[in-house]
């Protein structure tokens, strides 16, 4: 008969250990290169513009997913965005309680398709949909051209 009881110790059974070792280096791509260089060097976020569909994509894309045009025009994302949804994480990935809940938000920008998921830099009680926010960036010298150059989003008016 097979193992019917729940066990938390797989080593009680005859077993082999394995490790699916895999390490990666991901290229940020053609549109991603523009976005991350502008974020690092200019401290700003870019969207790519589809003229035909009158759409701006954030994060920027090389192509319009709808009309399939190649996109080469980039525009600045407005500095002020709005919280579209929030969550408060109470447990870490292993299920261990966090000392303080982490606040995460989906931030969208007027007239822009898409948005960014990032830390929301407010106490849980202040996290709400509709909050006007802006990106808080690391200092120029600490930015490397990655999504973590953004520390999170903070309220425009505290």
């Amino acid at each position, binding site marked *: 008969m097979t193992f019917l009881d729940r066990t938390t110790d797989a080593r009680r059974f005859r077993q*082999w250990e394995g490790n699916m070792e*895999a390490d*990666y280096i*991901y*290229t940020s*791509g*053609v549109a991603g290169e523009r976005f991350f260089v502008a974020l690092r060097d200019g401290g700003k976020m870019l969207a790519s513009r589809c003229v035909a569909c009158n759409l701006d994509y954030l994060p920027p894309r090389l*192509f319009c*997913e709808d009309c*399939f045009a190649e996109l080469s025009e980039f525009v600045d994302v407005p500095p002020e965005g709005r919280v579209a949804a929030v969550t408060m994480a109470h447990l870490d990935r292993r299920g261990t309680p966090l000392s303080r809940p982490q606040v995460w938000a989906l931030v969208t920008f007027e007239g822009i398709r898409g948005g960014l998921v990032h830390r929301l830099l407010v106490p849980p009680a202040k996290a709400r949909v509709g909050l006007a926010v802006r990106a808080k960036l690391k200092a120029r010298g600490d930015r490397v051209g990655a999504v973590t150059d953004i520390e999170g989003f903070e309220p425009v008016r505290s």
Partner: protein
Amino acid sequence: MRKVGVIGAGMTLFRRRLQETGKEMCFEATKMALDSAGLTRADIDMVVNGTAPDAFDGVHMKGEYLLDGCGGYRKPYTRVFTGGGTGVFSSIAGWWHVASGLADAVLVVNEEKMSSCQPHPQSVFAHIWDPILDRPLRPNLIWIFAMEMNRYMHVHGVKKEDIARVAVKNKRNAVGHPCAQLADPNITVDDVLNSEVMAWPVQRLDISPPSDGASAIVLASEDFIRRRKIKDRAWMSGVGWCIDSTMWTDRDLYFPEYVARAAQTAYKRAKISDPRRQIDFAEPYDPFDYKELHHLEGLLLARKGEAPILTREGVTERDGDLPVCPSGGLMGVGNPIAATMGQKIGELFWQLTNQAGKRQIPHEVHTGVAQAWGDLMQYGSVVVMSS
């Protein structure tokens, strides 16, 4: 079943590392295929994506990740996967979308970005082995190919020189391919025989290294092709696929029975009773030089043990009686696993519609066969196409 034609094809450069993300590569290939068919994304009813293990790109649910680049946004979209066999199998999935009457025009987009995986995709290839019987021995995937090659050489008394001729032919054929990574107009048999031994008898130039790339084709029904007055089309007249035992140790490695069965299915549908006479050229899967020979025999285009002789005699050269891998194949163009659809189905389309440029077979050809090989050395997918 309705008649299905290939009406467009596109592919990116194949390179060790491309700046483009997987989605961006898919977009380039897809756009090229749509442009060549004279269609836009709006004309497409359904989309099929083919891509090999998620672990190569390092993105789980790779099909979902690639879908916008494949033109799949808000359309019926499916990813299919049969390991290396995906290179031809995804076009079979596209075929049944159209043959069944469910769709009139379908995009098939294949992608692989193997450079993401560090230090080498070999580290994730290791995970396809049985976790209890094989992996504790820390095998390298090339070992089993080396054993298959050895078994093939042993059973038929094949010399390494005759196998090396395949690498030479394909790397030279690839000189005319705009996407080629491994073209070499001056390579010789001695270069192959003198290259580094990786796992004997496999040497460095017997094998096609990892790569990044994407390819795409457009398929359409006969009615759609007539209605749109599309001139450049090649019919998919037969399809077949077959998988062998899950235990690679259970097979006699000298002959790919699963390819033969897949080929028989495809030939029956295409009404081909004598493949050697009725098929004008072939694009068998050639990630290793010996695999082209192995697969030619599996495709019943050569008797068992005869493929090396045909190669030595020049029959499989581009201007020979049975041109094999006129594209340059995986050995010459490159091997971003699923994206090799570009040298297989794409090449059949380009040859049959006289668009192969410098690679065009100099004599008239009407029927070609493409094949891919995958999973754990056990999967064959075969497509016959006719002008």
